[in-house]
């Protein structure tokens, strides 16, 4: 049996404790206690609470981004690729509600650096949507920010649901979220048709 490293235990602790207490109320003492490591070890690995939180955030986002990208690549046609990516996103978030809270809700409360990481994380999702420009005639003429706004429509609803304590039901929203993702490119009728298919 391989023991998780002290660093990994601290990253897990950051997710657990922040999910429970919120970022501002969380102390380094909470993290070391939850991880079962000494204060000295903590400061050998991280400069402060923020550094530990940001590392946990980056790790969580990396896992999510890899799952989404892998799911996207399993399909050929762009709407199917988006559907697969969204299924991966919604299922990951519903299976791990603490990570969902951290990634989309609590990150905003952790200050300017965390907020910039959050925006950078969302930016990683835009290429999936940008492919839609080549899928539809005239797609090149859509506004430059179309993919950023498509991501915003997804995360806006998802964050709302997480905040309302309904993270476990996120996969049920797939049709609506797929509609919102496709509609700037294909229009309401085609988006509704795609969203209605399984």
């Amino acid at each position, binding site marked *: 049996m391989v023991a998780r490293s002290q660093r990994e235990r601290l990253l897990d602790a950051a997710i657990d404790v922040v999910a429970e207490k919120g970022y501002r109320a969380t102390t380094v003492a909470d993290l070391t206690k939850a991880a079962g490591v000494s204060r000295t070890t903590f400061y050998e690995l991280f400069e402060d609470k923020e550094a530990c939180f940001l590392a946990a955030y980056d790790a969580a986002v990396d896992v999510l981004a890899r799952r989404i990208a892998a799911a996207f690549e399993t399909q050929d046609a762009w709407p199917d690729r988006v559907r697969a990516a969204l299924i991966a996103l919604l299922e990951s978030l519903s299976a791990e509600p603490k990570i969902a809270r951290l990634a989309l809700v609590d990150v905003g409360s952790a200050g300017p650096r965390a907020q910039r990481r959050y925006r950078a994380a969302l930016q990683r999702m835009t290429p999936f949507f940008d492919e839609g420009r080549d899928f539809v005639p005239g797609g090149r003429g859509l*506004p430059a920010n*179309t993919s*950023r706004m498509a*991501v915003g429509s*997804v995360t806006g*609803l998802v*964050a709302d649901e997480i905040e309302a304590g309904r993270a476990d039901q996120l996969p049920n929203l797939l049709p609506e979220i797929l509609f*919102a993702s496709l509609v700037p490119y294909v*229009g309401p009728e085609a988006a509704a048709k795609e969203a209605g298919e399984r």
Partner: protein
Amino acid sequence: MAAITETRRDVLLEAMVRVVGRKGYEATSVADVIEEAGTSRTTFYKHFDDKHDCFLSAYDMVVERVFATVVAECDGEQPWLPRVRKGLATLIGIFAREPELARTAVVEVAVAGAEARQRHWDAVARFTGYLEDGRAEVDPGGNLPTHISVMAMGAVSGLIFDELVAGRTAQLPSLMPDLLFAMLVPFIGPAAATEEMRRAVQAT
């Protein structure tokens, strides 16, 4: 006397909005706020328990003011589309003219704790409700997804948040065409939304 007391409270609220927009919520102290407001510490504590209490009241004031301005600018008699266009332009105009207010209202509110965040969600929900009010005009059959207004608002607020975090508040009005596109496209589709976007460009 009552009027003067009320005014001092308002001055403190306005000061809180400006200081938080400039320094961030965490770095803001009661001392900063009373210095900005030009009032005494005693006056501050007569009206508020602490920084957090003052911030929540300041936030409520901002939401009321912004919402009232947007609604006043949108003639209720107008059809949905011009109303949405006018409402969005009004909101963007307020943010561009008052960048400190914009940062406080959209970015810093997330830092100020769970209660503040709840107020932010409630504020977004009011704007969503306003968008939703005219939905029957563009979706008479009720065929569009239930959460369509929430998602349209998400697209708009996500882009605004991005620009504020990046310090590009003054350039927000140049994004008006894109924002209008995002708000309209789920309802009317890309061709019609692009047409509206072109008109918005010509209007500026």
